């Protein structure tokens, strides 16, 4: 485990989130913006569904040949003058990054938004070793000031309202006039731009993630709207790319297919503002750019997912559409999930990375409404994979005892139709009799979770099979 996880306390996290009025207000923004924009972008491109198929196929093909594409990629990076490092796990990755920073006597490190850097917990490690990491994506900068994890993979500060950001800026930017007006979001943006511009220009090392790595050319790709990732990687002397091994794609054509679905699925844009293809360090013909270019390829559990049902999860391109469309995410936000990756993709990926014994709630906390799968640009069957986790929990006896014994009792009757009919007839008769007056129950001993929030409708009395037998059996049998 790398970053501390509160996933085992999912239920408590969720209850707290549901009562957090600031959070509930902020979550309204997720429900409104992303969904309509994605739909409009998809509707405007007749080939969108075909592109989703193509995107899925490209990722599947790459994963099936991952060893060979990695070799090709590594060779190309070296040929372009860059360095490739391999890290088995988070700890190895942190040491490699720290080592590169020390080689260059780095004091400050600017960072582009990167989920893998959250996964390996690099910021705390750098701080502990006297190096200052500065998040430069506006959302990441805000949550760094608050010492929080991102609550969304593309909108890290989506759980916050502008007034909360204002408070943080006033608390931290003490060199600025205390009486300045920060009542408008644009004023907050302008202030962050000015503060971070100085940080960009002073940084010794820039660390970015990678949306994709191209085997054909040894290229790393970042996709941003702010331009912070580019300032992170072209201004300092050293650029470090952090990427998990499944980011690979074969060719520039393949990556173009994936880019056509990425922004549309994420923000509903035709294309994000900045898509940057970086290959090696500054050339003799360049006037700017980093002198050193390092890529840290991180496994951290991915290679063991290959060849299993969860290989499909490695197609994920981190667009965030699944969480944007998830009713559970809408209700509780990202922090309730308790680790780096929230929403449906987190519910599948987190158990793979930190263990289903710790993250067991996540694949269970889904209604299986299927909306995530219906919008996934690489067609990951997220509900099916969550169900696979539930099966593993069941096999390993991690399913709660009450659920297990309830299922056993119900299964016992359901496998014995005669007994089932007899028992249900008796039970429904009694339940109907008890609830007849009002037509519903406000409290039932067996379903307290249900009746905490809603009534339980009373049954009509006779079962269908009872009545059918009475009215029709002579005729139909």
């Amino acid at each position, binding site marked *: 485990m790398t970053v501390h996880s509160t996933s085992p306390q999912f*239920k408590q996290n*969720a209850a707290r989130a*549901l009562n957090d009025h600031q959070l509930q207000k902020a979550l309204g923004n997720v429900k409104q913006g992303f969904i309509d924009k994605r739909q409009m972008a998809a509707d405007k491109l007749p080939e969108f569904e075909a592109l989703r198929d193509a995107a899925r196929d490209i990722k599947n093909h790459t994963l099936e040949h991952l060893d060979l594409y990695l070799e090709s990629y590594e060779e190309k990076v070296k040929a372009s003058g860059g360095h490739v490092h391999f890290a088995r796990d988070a700890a190895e990755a942190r040491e490699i990054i720290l080592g590169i920073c020390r080689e260059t006597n780095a004091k400050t490190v600017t960072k582009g938004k990167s989920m893998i850097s959250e996964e390996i917990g690099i910021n705390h490690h750098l701080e502990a070793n006297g190096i200052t990491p500065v998040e430069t994506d506006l959302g990441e900068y805000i949550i760094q000031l608050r010492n929080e994890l991102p609550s969304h993979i593309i909108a890290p500060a989506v759980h916050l309202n502008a007034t909360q950001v204002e408070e943080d800026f006033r608390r931290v930017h003490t060199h600025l006039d205390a009486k300045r007006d920060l009542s408008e979001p644009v004023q907050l943006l302008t202030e962050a731009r000015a503060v971070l511009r100085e940080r960009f220009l002073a940084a010794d090392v820039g660390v970015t993630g990678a949306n994709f790595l191209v085997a054909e050319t040894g290229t790393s790709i970042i996709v941003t709207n702010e331009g912070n990732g580019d300032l992170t990687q072209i201004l300092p002397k050293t650029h470090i790319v952090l990427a998990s091994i499944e980011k690979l794609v074969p060719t520039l054509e393949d990556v173009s297919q994936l880019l056509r679905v990425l922004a549309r699925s994420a923000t509903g844009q035709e294309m994000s503002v900045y898509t940057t293809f970086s290959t090696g360090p500054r050339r003799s013909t360049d006037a700017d750019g980093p002198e050193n270019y390092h890529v840290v390829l991180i496994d951290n559990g991915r290679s063991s997912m290959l060849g299993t049902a969860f290989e499909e999860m490695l197609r994920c391109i981190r667009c965030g559409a699944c969480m944007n469309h998830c*009713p*559970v995410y809408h*209700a*509780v936000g990202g922090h309730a999930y308790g680790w780096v990756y929230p929403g449906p993709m987190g519910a599948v990926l987190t158990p793979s990375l930190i263990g289903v014994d710790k993250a067991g709630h996540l694949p*269970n*906390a*889904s*209604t*299986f*409404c*299927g*909306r995530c*799968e*219906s919008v996934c640009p690489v067609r990951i069957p997220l509900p099916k994979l969550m*169900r696979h*986790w539930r*099966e*593993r929990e069941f096999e390993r006896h991690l*399913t709660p005892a009450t*659920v297990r014994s309830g*299922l056993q009792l*119900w*299964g016992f*009757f*359901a*496998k014995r*139709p005669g007994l*089932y*009919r007899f028992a*249900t007839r008796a039970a*429904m008769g009694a339940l109907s009799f008890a609830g*007849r*007056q*009002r*037509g*519903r129950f*406000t409290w039932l001993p067996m*379903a*307290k*979770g*249900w009746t*905490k*929030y*809603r*009534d*339980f*409708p*009373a*049954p*009509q009395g006779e*079962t*269908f*099979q*009872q009545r*059918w037998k009475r009215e029709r059996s002579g005729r*139909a*049998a």
Partner: protein
Amino acid sequence: MSATPSSARPAHPRVGLFVTCLVDLMRPSVGFAAVKLLEDAGCVVDAPVQTCCGQPAYNSGDRGTTRDLAMRLIEAFQGYDYVVAPSGSCAGMIKAHYPELFEEDPNWRAKADALAGKTYELISFLVDVLGVTKVGAAFDGAVTYHDSCSGLRELGVKRQPRKLLASVEGLTLVEMKDSDVCCGFGGTFAVKYSDISGAIVEAKAKNIEETQAPTVLAGDLGCLMNMAGKLSRDGRSIQVRHVAEVLAGMTDEPPIGAAKAKAIK
């Protein structure tokens, strides 16, 4: 979804009604509404002895029990031209998930595939397979319709109920905001994660109420019980019914969660 060409379809297809646990136990009138709709459309309907499709076990990770129940159901419904359920969720279980339960057993896989191929959700069966374009029912007033998730996303049930509702005399359909968003039921989810489920159904209840329609319909009893329970808990007098009851003109029974004696209304 495949529709059998009319030439290949018998004039009076034998339909096995998979009534589903919830309808069987909680609201048999939905089953009889389904029978009426199917018989009106020329089907010969039978309801063999049955229990459950196994979905609760399946979604709880208990594949063994699920397979046992699936095998019983496959055998019980072998002899029919079609199998029809008044539920997108249970029909979806058979159609979309039974085959993968038997990936390593070609014999049962073939049987599961055969069953999956002839199983339909009630309303889409009427429209897509039987070509029903209108029903003879009347219903006075405005209704709003909730798209239950499995029917919508696993089986493509969306326009079919709207098409038939449009033919009901006196009925107007008022669409709610986010009709295609989950109501928060999710089977055991509603009990296991009741806080979250409660929050999701609260949003659904709000969207229903905003339409000002006095009646809400859907095609799955689980969702209906969830929405009815929430609306009655909040003291809202919105009536909740299965869409089949309205399409069959069988609305004599009190709405879901409403008192039996009409005087109390």
